[in-house]
């Protein structure tokens, strides 16, 4: 068990690199979600979120 823990620790990424990867993935995911919420023209999405988009004043809908 100790060996497994030691091996796992040696594989762990440095803090700064881990933060960079995690924050990059979060930004990418947030970007996708925001695009689908506010900008996608796919009809089922657009029709569902139509009123929401119009209610935000600066989001182009048409």
């Amino acid at each position, binding site marked *: 068990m100790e060996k497994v823990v030691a091996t796992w620790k040696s594989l762990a990424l440095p803090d700064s690199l881990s*933060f960079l990867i*995690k*924050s990059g993935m*979060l930004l990418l995911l*947030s970007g996708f979600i925001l695009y689908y919420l506010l900008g996608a023209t796919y009809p089922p999405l657009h029709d569902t979120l139509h009123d929401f*988009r*119009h*209610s*935000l*004043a*600066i*989001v*182009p*809908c*048409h």
Partner: protein
Amino acid sequence: MPLIVRLALFLCLFFSARAAPAQGAGGEIGMQTFPLLKQVRPLAEPVRTVLIILDSNGRALKKGTAHIRLVAPAPGRFFSTDFPVIEGTPLLEMDLPILQGRAAWEYLFPIRGVYRLEVRAVAEEGTGIERVFDLEIRENRMRLFYLAIFALALFVFGIMAGRLFTGGKRGL
């Protein structure tokens, strides 16, 4: 003449030209809206616009035709409206009869911004008066409120994600 005096003179001429009641020698065109423009919000309620057309003697023009052209606000530099397809495009173009110096119509303004209303009134005898109005429609306050809430939610989400990823060690 010093440059500052020239500049002041230019600004005086510029603003006095903007404030002139009519662009044309044959009379004047005034406008009233119901409700007042500062109370109007996009897609909220139809606005009744009344043009008051006076001849060169200051009396109401008895008969004639008013040619109306309404152009939507130009696109903003940074932020779009919710209906960018119509920004800067002509929305209305019509001829209205002038009866006892008045021509009126109702219109539901679709987006915020400064609309350009071009009016050309032609009397029966053929004399024309032209004027351009700038109509400013303000954004619905509730929409700005929702936008602020949305921006705040994104901000809070960003802070929470930052704290989660750094385990609270980076002083966030």
